[in-house]
């Protein structure tokens, strides 16, 4: 049963991923990427990693793809009719690199996962099933007790990110009045 779901998902994911690559229209590519993200989320669910699946959908498919789309529209990319020569060779080298990466990953999984992963994973799964709690519950309790310091530090990090985003998107004119960069673009 799970294998059938897995292979179906696999086919859909690869289909969307090809859609990202082969679409000449960047907006369509970005939308295909949303599909890839959602399929990945489903894959994580299959592995019972609810939290990661949740992040995939909320953060990646939700917020980050919106950001992608805005960047694409900000740069106002048009469809390119012809590919310039330097991009043609890039495509070849990129493909070669991708294939190399794939084989290295496959080899690595073959070699390194042989020892410790499976018993460890099985133990965790069995433990969770015995305690009748999904992983996210354990994780969430840990987060606000044992890992409370990094948890609170993330709020500081987000605060810094807010400041950074605003500072970098803004500039001041000669009189010290704050204006947004957009005014120069427009």
């Amino acid at each position: 049963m799970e294998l059938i779901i897995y292979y179906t998902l696999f086919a859909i994911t690869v289909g969307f991923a090809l859609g990202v690559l082969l679409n000449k229209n960047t907006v369509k590519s970005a939308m295909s990427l949303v599909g890839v993200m959602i399929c990945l989320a489903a894959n994580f669910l299959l592995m019972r990693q609810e939290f990661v699946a949740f992040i995939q959908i909320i953060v990646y498919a939700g917020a980050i793809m919106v950001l992608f789309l805005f960047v694409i529209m900000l740069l106002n990319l048009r469809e390119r009719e012809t590919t310039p020569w330097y991009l043609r060779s890039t495509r070849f080298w990129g493909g070669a690199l991708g294939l190399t990466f794939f084989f290295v990953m496959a080899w690595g999984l073959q070699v390194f996962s042989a020892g410790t992963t499976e018993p460890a994973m099985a133990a965790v799964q069995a433990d969770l099933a015995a305690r009748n709690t999904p992983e996210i519950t354990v994780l969430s309790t840990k987060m606000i007790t044992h890992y409370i310091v990094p948890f609170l530090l993330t709020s500081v990090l987000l605060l810094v990110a807010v400041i950074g985003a605003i500072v970098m998107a803004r500039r001041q004119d000669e009189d010290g009045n704050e204006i947004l960069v957009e005014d120069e673009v427009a």
Partner: protein
Amino acid sequence: MTTLALIQAYVPNIHPAHIMPFLVMLVGAILCLIFDAMSDKQGSRDLLPWVAGSTLVATIMSLLIGFMPYNRLFAEETFRADTFSVLGSITIMLACLLAVIMGPALVSRRNIPSGEFYTLIVFVAFGGMTMALSNELLTAFIALEIMSLSLYVLTGIDRRSSRASEAAFKYFILGAFASAFLVLGIGFIFGATHTTHLHEIAAVLGEGSVDLVNGGAAALNPIWIFVGFALLFVGMCFKLSLAPFHMWAPDVYEGANTPTVVMIATSSKIAAFALMVHIVAALARWDLFAEGATYLVGFVALVSMIWGNLGALVQSNFKRMMAYSSVAQTGYMALALMVLIALPGQLEGAKLAAAEEAIKNAIVLYLVGYTVMSALALGIAWLIGGEGHMAGYRGLVFRNPIAATGMAVAMFSLVGIGFTPPTIGFMGKFYLFKEAVQYNFTALAAIAVVTSVISAFYYLNLVVTMFMREETEEAGVRLACMREQTFRLASSDALTRVAMASCTALIFLLGFFPNSLFLIADAIKEGFLR
């Protein structure tokens, strides 16, 4: 039930007094931000450097008073205060304080949003301190991100300078890559040891097996730990600007404003080195670790020493020269890091602990010395407007003898070897090389000495330019131009001069009495003000 009792029922190891320095910094940073957002008039914004400065001073005070338990884990085993991290934190604060002092001139001249500028400086210090004190990899990573994000923004905060924007962009992209490597490395180590706390990692590695949830145990997979450490080390090399991951450094140093360069050159390196030393101390508990990691770290140290010094030889821009010099200087410290990794193979028990302590002290002495020296060099360059082409330094001694002398002190100290009277640079290098020779890394130590001699060419070239070349009209114009771009305020000017004078004093004080640094640490350990 009181609030404190409620908190301690769930996280028993957290006590508000222990985390006092963190709270002080956070409140100070937030005050800066809110104060800026709420104030309408420019006049009230002039108070901001005082808010930021007093925050940093208050943090130094709370570190000195010693609220934190010494050499013991606290705050849910997240932090550990030892000599290295406390002295490192204080130095980070001082470097950021220098940036705050230099700030007003920059802010008024280049029309920079002042609230954000000072807030981000305080956040750099906050991230750096958290990183230096952390005993847990997740905390360390988040703290690193807090510090790096603040530095990226500070680099590009001068929105009217295209060079600054370019530098910020390069720094951000490469830094983000480095962070990805780092977090992947942490993931591998977590996967192998099932914990992110350094003391637990050390325990697991000592045992040689991981306890599983269901009570069973699995053997450690050495590959994971090696891959994890390698990735983590690559990430840290970016942050430390160790060759061959230093490519961003010259461009960022050149493009960023000088207060930010002071922090990039000192604060970020102290924090990263403190973290590296703590991680290495935990991982070195494992017998196999030294065999692989020694070569990795040794290679990086070797390449940094050679590439940094040779690269600096051909620079004509002062800040670019300082960037390559920082690559070389961190290379010397990486040498000590390598010795630290190799130690457990050579010594045991109490002897090992004593030797590790000695090497850590040598690194922290060098770090403090390096901070003081680069702060002095960059600060004087900032004061006289010598951040650009080095032709501006021609005959400086005839125009501004005090600045020329101060710069010469910094340069002699940066060279380190072979010059009397003893400076902090000499003492730092002496201890580092001594440790390397003592534990049979004579070849690398010899290369370090040779590269130090090479470094004398470019450091002393500047001294020669200042003292033995005739003053030209062009040199004066160069300095005046640069100075006009950045400099205006008399109060900031005066305070920076005071800071430079104390840096010069420190160079000689720590050069003659290097142990006085550790007296501070001992005093904090005793809790002398408590």
